[in-house]
């Protein structure tokens, strides 16, 4: 396929892998931030091709995985109400809340629908004036422009039966949280290309300086990822701690400024709880007060719903890159995609799900496929 197969070219990938092997003199731990990158690495077996000294750990950039339990409980409460059409990106339906998931709500008669864009939800609201249409606005910076556009469009069209349940999270604050952790062992980051396509990488430059760590803006295809790894290893080997852009076909330093402008018009910064990690100050976005009439939490009075994760769940360690999915005792035995015990096994972009689907499945078949 044009514009895609070029970035999956085996010869070029192997050429870059050979370069990585040539320049690597010691063990380096790199973290890819985004779940889409984790998926691509495991699906294509890129880590099998890398030299042993390059260790990839998987970051918290799966929006489905990090959406806090109480937000899911709020979603379930809203979706269960009569006269509500609850819309969501598909992979959110399987994520368990405290008692149920959106699939169960649908099985019990709730009107839960998968949409491909929040603007489809606005259209649904227009077509169903006697219903309340709610969109589950989760995600990182990547989905924020479309999510805020849905609010602006509803406002422009005078649609009053539309609201969004917001659980937006931001990457730079998560990177800083990982770097501040006393357990941190990440030495270089592959930053998420599509987040930077929206936001640019100007926010990462002071982070790289402050913590003395190289970061490379990296895409998602095999060649992009291997290029991102090579650039990061080059920086590590030469001791230059700066931000490099290995995804120039999509990302500039300033990013998409009109997208940033609409985000800032509708959203404001807030503290946000991350599932499996905890509260990260300033790491979220919520609706500004002037748009509060589109806030589903307020409209359906679910603001007070609280939920606590069991302290025994270790998906937080996976999300912080402290352990690999298959180092969990429950992995592949008690915890599988159809019976997920933690959020990282639920989403297709979750690290545990990626390992399960493409790699090891049971302790006795762990060598399979290598």
């Amino acid at each position, binding site marked *: *396929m044009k514009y895609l197969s070029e970035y999956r070219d085996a010869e070029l990938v192997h050429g870059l892998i050979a370069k990585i092997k040539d320049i690597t003199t010691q063990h380096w731990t790199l973290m890819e931030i985004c779940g889409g990158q984790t998926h691509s690495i495991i*699906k*294509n077996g890129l880590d099998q091709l890398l030299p042993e000294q390059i260790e990839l750990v998987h970051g918290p950039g799966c929006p489905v995985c990090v959406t806090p339990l109480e937000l899911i409980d709020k979603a379930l409460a809203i979706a269960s109400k009569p006269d509500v059409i609850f819309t969501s990106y598909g*992979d959110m339906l399987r994520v368990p809340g*405290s008692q149920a998931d959106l699939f169960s709500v649908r099985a019990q008669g709730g009107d839960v629908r998968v949409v*491909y864009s929040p603007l489809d939800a606005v259209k649904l609201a227009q077509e169903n004036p006697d219903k309340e249409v709610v969109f589950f606005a989760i995600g990182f910076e990547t989905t924020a422009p479309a999510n805020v556009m849905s609010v602006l469009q509803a406002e422009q069209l005078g649609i009053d039966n539309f609201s969004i349940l917001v659980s937006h999270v931001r990457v730079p604050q998560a990177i800083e949280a990982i770097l501040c952790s006393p357990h941190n062992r990440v030495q270089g980051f592959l930053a998420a290309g599509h987040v930077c396509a929206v936001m640019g990488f100007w926010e990462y430059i002071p982070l790289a300086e402050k913590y003395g760590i190289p970061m490379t803006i990296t895409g998602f295809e095999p060649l992009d990822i291997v290029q991102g790894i090579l650039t990061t290893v080059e920086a590590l080997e030469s001791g230059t701690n700066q931000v490099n852009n290995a995804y120039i076909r999509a990302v500039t330093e300033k990013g998409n400024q009109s997208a940033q402008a609409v985000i800032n018009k509708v959203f404001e910064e807030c503290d946000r709880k991350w599932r499996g990690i905890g509260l990260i100050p300033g790491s979220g976005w919520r609706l500004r007060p002037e748009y509060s009439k589109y806030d589903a939490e307020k409209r359906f009075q679910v603001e007070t719903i609280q939920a606590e994760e069991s302290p025994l769940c270790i998906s937080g360690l996976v999300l912080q890159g402290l352990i690999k999915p298959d180092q969990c005792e429950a992995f592949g035995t008690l915890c599988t995609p*159809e019976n997920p015990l*933690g959020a990282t096994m639920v989403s297709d972009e979750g690290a545990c799900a990626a390992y399960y689907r493409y790699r090891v499945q049971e302790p006795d078949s762990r060598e*399979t*496929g290598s």
Partner: protein
Amino acid sequence: MINKTPEMESPICPLPRKHTDKIVQGHGSGGKMMEDLIKDIFYPPLANEALLAGDDAGVVEITSGRRLAVSTDAHVVSPLFFPGGDIGKLSVCGTVNDVAMVGAKPLYLSASFILEEGLDICLLEKVVLSMKDAAEEAGVKIICGDTKVVAHGEADGLYISTTGVGELDPGLNISGNQAKPGDQVIVSGKLGDHGIAVLEARGDLGFETKLVSDIAPLNHLISAMLSVSDQIHVLRDPTRGGAASALNEIAKQSQVGIFLEEALIPVRPAVAAACEMLGFDPLYIANEGKLIAIVGQKDAPKVLEKMRQTKYGEDAVLIGQVEDSPPGRLLLKTGLGSTRIVDLLAGEMLPRIC
């Protein structure tokens, strides 16, 4: 580096949701949830040899040496008409193909209709004419039927359930449990057309692909294949759940490892592009006019050649082979030279967020 799994009193996480109390959409996806439902709910009380064989059609001996293959399929599709076909054609071809996948010659079909109050009769007429055309092409007769009407809102327009009967030549033993190490894996054409065409017709894509469903009766293709080889070990039509699910079932039934070469898997650019945009894998997308054949190594070239001479097999290609291990697993050699598991989907295939 952490070399040890953090200690846990017991591996308890807070959130199990196994959906064992209510039916959810995932139970009909052709993936792991459906497999479990069949194994846990249907097999134990209904068990018999033909059912437990787990093939597309059940095979029974009626008098000495005479064997019948019987298959049944309920068809629910939205929309009722889509590029390349409609629910009528689907209901005939789906059952004809299931009967043919054990090597039987499909002969007769029954059809049950569940009609929603308010359905346009001219629409029903169109569907029935389409069934007639499909039955003629397949060379089968629809010899009995049933009609029920349910109240408005209790069905989505029209559901059709068909049952097919076919006769099986003596000596044939085509089953999911017959794959043997060394066998070659052949697919009769490009994968994923039907699933993406229906998604598009449903208005779910948001872009145009001009794809047409591949619905077709495959019994004549299978007759042609059987005319040149007695080494056809397994036949399966990769419908719901796609090629990945069909091959996983075969790997489990035969306790073999099946290896596919990613570079050899035939997919139209439009299907590949739609899958990229939605986060789908073409190996899991439904087909309605394709078959997977597992054929003895020696006969594979002549079977392939014969397939390519037929209308529904002209794009047939070899996509992999059977090995003795790892038993029960489907694996894919990627274009980059690494290997990964291709598993059954857990439940529904869901579009990814970004």
